[in-house]
């Protein structure tokens, strides 16, 4: 099920570099995400995964290289403009609006849209995807569990009708059972035709759901390829899947 047969990828990073002051956190990486694909970017803590995402979404200035989205150069474009172009992100740590209800969170996700009827229909669509959220639609987001908040964050991102969804560590800080659920959801969203770039520390689960994967190490891509192949790659297994040392 490897998609991405289209001529131009939806997202292409060409030699992307991102720096914090003098420290280069991302050192000229190349990465593509084809239309309809689910691509994961895995790596240890501090490898530069989140920084890559911040560079793409304009939250951190890019110090070198290009970002192409749907053929257009979007390097250095402000975040709010990207959302209007159909690029949605779920920020690290979920970032739900804790004081707003679930319903209000979802409508906030549709901030760039003005079609009231369409928004209402999409709220129901998200509820169909996450029945748990529907039960608590009038509850404040801050009262949800971590896993439910992650679902809400994803649902909210879908409200902008994105073509590309960027997920930053959706499994972070969640109970194992919830992690399973979140990944099932990622698969379901991908199944709806949304292109996804998934950033994860949980390499095993990420590679199991993704079509392709990239492995990042201290700011550079060290391995790339088909997700199944990476999953069986001895180097990946040793470094990220805990084969050598029997620690999770």
């Amino acid at each position, binding site marked *: 099920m490897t998609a991405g047969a289209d001529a131009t990828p939806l997202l292409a990073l060409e030699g992307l570099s991102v720096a914090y002051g003098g420290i280069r956190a991302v050192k000229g990486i190349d990465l593509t995400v084809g239309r309809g694909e689910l691509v994961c970017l895995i790596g240890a803590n501090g490898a530069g995964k989140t920084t890559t995402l911040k560079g793409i*979404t304009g*939250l951190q200035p890019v110090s070198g290289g290009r970002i192409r989205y749907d053929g257009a150069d979007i390097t250095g474009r*402000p*975040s*709010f403009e*990207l*959302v*209007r172009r159909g690029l*949605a*992100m*779920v*920020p690290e740590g979920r*970032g*739900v*609006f*804790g*004081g*707003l209800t679930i319903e209000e969170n979802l409508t*906030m*996700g549709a*901030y*760039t849209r003005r079609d009231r009827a369409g928004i209402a229909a999409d709220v129901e669509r998200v509820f169909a995807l996450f029945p748990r959220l529907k039960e608590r639609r009038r509850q*404040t987001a*801050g*009262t949800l569990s971590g896993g439910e908040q992650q679902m809400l964050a994803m649902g*909210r*991102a879908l409200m*902008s009708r994105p073509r590309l969804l960027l997920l930053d560590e959706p499994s972070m800080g969640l109970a194992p059972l919830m992690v399973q659920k979140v990944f099932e959801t990622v698969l379901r969203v991908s199944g709806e035709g949304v292109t996804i770039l998934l950033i994860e520390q949980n390499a095993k689960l990420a590679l199991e759901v993704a079509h392709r994967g990239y492995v990042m190490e201290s700011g550079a891509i060290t391995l790339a390829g088909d997700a199944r192949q990476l999953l069986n790659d001895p180097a990946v297994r040793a470094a990220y899947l805990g084969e050598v040392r029997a620690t999770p």
Partner: protein
Amino acid sequence: MRALVDTKGHPVLVWVGLALVGLALVALPFALAGIGTAWVRITNLAILFVFLALGLNIVVGFAGLLDLGYIAFYAVGAYAYALLASPHFGIHLPFWVILPIGAAIACLFGVLLGAPTLKLRGDYLAIVTLGFGEIVRIFLNNLSQPVNITNGPQGVTLIDPLRIGTFSFRDTDTFAGLAFTGPVKYYYFLLVVLLAIIVINLRLQDSRIGRAWEAIREDEVAARAMGINTRNMKLLAFAMGASFGGIAGGMFSAMQGFISPESFILIESIMVLAMVVLGGMGNVWGVIVGALLLSFAPEVLRYTVEPAQQALFGRMLVEPEVIRMLLFGFALVLMMLFRPAGLLPSATRKRELEVRR
């Protein structure tokens, strides 16, 4: 919004209620004049503080940006009016020209403060805004040399009152057997402006802009991820809040006829902020209640504490000002304990506090 527009339940009752409130507001100055004309003046100042509190509420309550130098915009508006309608420069423009100019200049100052502080939040923003308020006051105090612009600590005197043709808001007119004194006329004028400002605030809260501010207040990064231009929205909050302050300042100038930098000290900024916090950040009605309460309370104390002490001890033991600050502090502590989101909290604020606890 809801209280004003949602008349579906009992339309007749609601309209009768509104009419009664309106009638009471119209009759109020005459009732107050019975106690003493000073009370009409006090009411007018209280309404000005409602303007200020509503303006600050946009910045603090809606957008969640803590501003401790808000009185600077009041000062800018007041000086804009004073300098363009007094013998100081010999310029006497009509008020409908100056009030918008004052609002525009205050708005410019709002952006001036907002632009360099875009990346600051919470404590850091508070410190910068506090400094800004002081800088404006110190400038007003010292801009008498080398070119005399503000007349320094002496302030500007003989400021023109509001005037429409030959109808001056300062003089007393008799109409239908009723004496309309200056303060009474100002009261009606302020009431009309107040109504407009309340409507603007309520509409703002329910608008797309209001929702963007709400998102920024809750989580700025997430707000950006929603496609909100957080930079422009924050600047807009500063600009709008500042313009309200500027309009209030202009009217203060016209009503008082005299202004000096002393009217715009830090404690005034803190008072306005206290009005917003006490009433209920983010809730227009709460903020109005807070502003009225904190404006009237000291005056009521002034008129009760002194006679009470005279009667009890035969002399003044504690200055009313001291008692006022004491009670004021006490009220704030009690409020933080029992109603942390304000007397009339905004629904969202209340929920936020519950979540964070």
